[in-house]
């Protein structure tokens, strides 16, 4: 892998200042990248085909998405597949995903 200058500097700083537990810089595109794991089924940027089989996520308010995702995780909203998938993400990751889709037009 190519070591970018910034990465090399970061590595140096962490190497000097911290231990093996130094965490790398967070990804500035994290919300977009996490949301992209949903879009194979739910359509690019949450624009699922308008046949109502897969819910359109684009433009849905984040609190609404989060409530649904929490219900999937807790099992209070029974479904075939989403309870299994929602459990694979942390609360913080789901918040990022919900905010990303809410902001799509």
């Amino acid at each position: 892998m190519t070591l970018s200058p910034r990465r090399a500097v970061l590595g140096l700083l962490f190497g000097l200042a911290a231990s093996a537990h130094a965490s790398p810089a967070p990804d500035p595109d994290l919300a977009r990248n996490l949301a992209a794991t949903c879009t194979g089924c739910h359509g690019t940027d949450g624009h699922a085909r308008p046949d109502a089989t897969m819910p359109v996520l684009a433009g849905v308010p984040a609190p609404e998405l989060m409530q649904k995702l929490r219900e999937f995780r807790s099992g209070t909203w029974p479904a075939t597949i989403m309870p299994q998938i929602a459990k694979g993400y942390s609360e913080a990751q789901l918040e990022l995903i919900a905010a990303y889709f809410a902001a799509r037009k």
Partner: protein
Amino acid sequence: MLKRRDFLKTAGLAGGSLLLPGLSGRALAATPRAHVVVVGGGYGGATAAKYLRMWSGGAVDVTLVERDPQFISCPISNLVLGGVKTLADITLGYEGLRDTWGVKVVKDEVTAIDPAARTLRLAAGGTLSWDRLVLSPGVDFQFDQVPGLDSEAARGRILHAWKAGAQTVALRAQLEAMPDGGVYALTIPLAPYRCPPGPYERACVVADYFRRAKPKSKVLVLDANAEIISKKALFTQAFARYKGILEYRPNSALREVDAASRTALLDFENVQADVLNVVPPQRAGAIATQAGLKLINGRWVDIDWQTFESVNTPGVHVLGDAIFPAPTMPKSGHMANQHAKVAAAAILRLLAGEAPNPAPVVMNTCYSFVDASHVIHVSSVHQYDAAQRTVLPVAGAGGVSAAASEQEGRYALAWAHNIWADMLA
């Protein structure tokens, strides 16, 4: 190469009239535009091409090299064998990538890659150079592992239909031509192979076709594995519903084929069939070997899970079925689509001189038809583990259907149309 048009788009200019004659877009651009070449237009490569253009806002030039004129989906192709769908239903064009996303689509085949020079050669004679290369070559079949399938004639008679297209249509024709009372035998190689549940789905869908059209016929599943390797309980239930039609035999590795008599030679018996369908063992597409990429077990490309870059060949990113999978990760079209997004994000960061996402996440959904309308699924979510430098399945997440249902049948078809659009539209 789209230089001029893309420059105009990036610069926000309405047309070419503002450019001085004699100056190309590239000459006016502050920095040279990066060029990514993607080889292979399947679930991995097509997705990578689109997302590189979409996420760069058109700032990165992308060329997709694909040998076939159209995309034909392996997922859903078993329904063509069952007579429920046609090849046209699973065939899509590359116009969306070209017209909507500005991907340069080149119908050609890559014959040689020079990673040091960052160039590749095309069968038609041209050369392409890249800043970063994405290889999504899929699998090649190891026909040398199946004595008796070493000739073109034998392979024209004993089909795999494990790459959707002409073979799918030809196998459907063999099944239709088979007299009622005949035997269709399907051999499954040892895992890992492309699409773990695919052979079991195929057995069910063909058995369903026989039940409707040729009720005296038999499906015989000869599995080299010790047991059903995907959705075992659900496929066991499905097989039970085809009692008298479908027979499943584990530990039945194929040793040789006699193409003339359509006979599968196993360790302790020979099985003669009316239609013999051999799914051969597989490995990464040959171009990976040609490029000198490090393989694991001589078959699958060893990659870095943050970037999908080959561990021994900087600048070359590999996606999909060709890679050595992370623990419990299936070789699926859905997973290749996920690989492509992680790789596209990483490539854009690396081109900008920045570090890639340190904690990528991928997830998988595989739907399988157990008849023309009832479907079962398996799902999983895989998060990057910094200590092990791979992605690991999240404990407690993922799983399989409670039972086959028509509801999931609708989801399966919606999945197909949505993921095809996510790749190509």
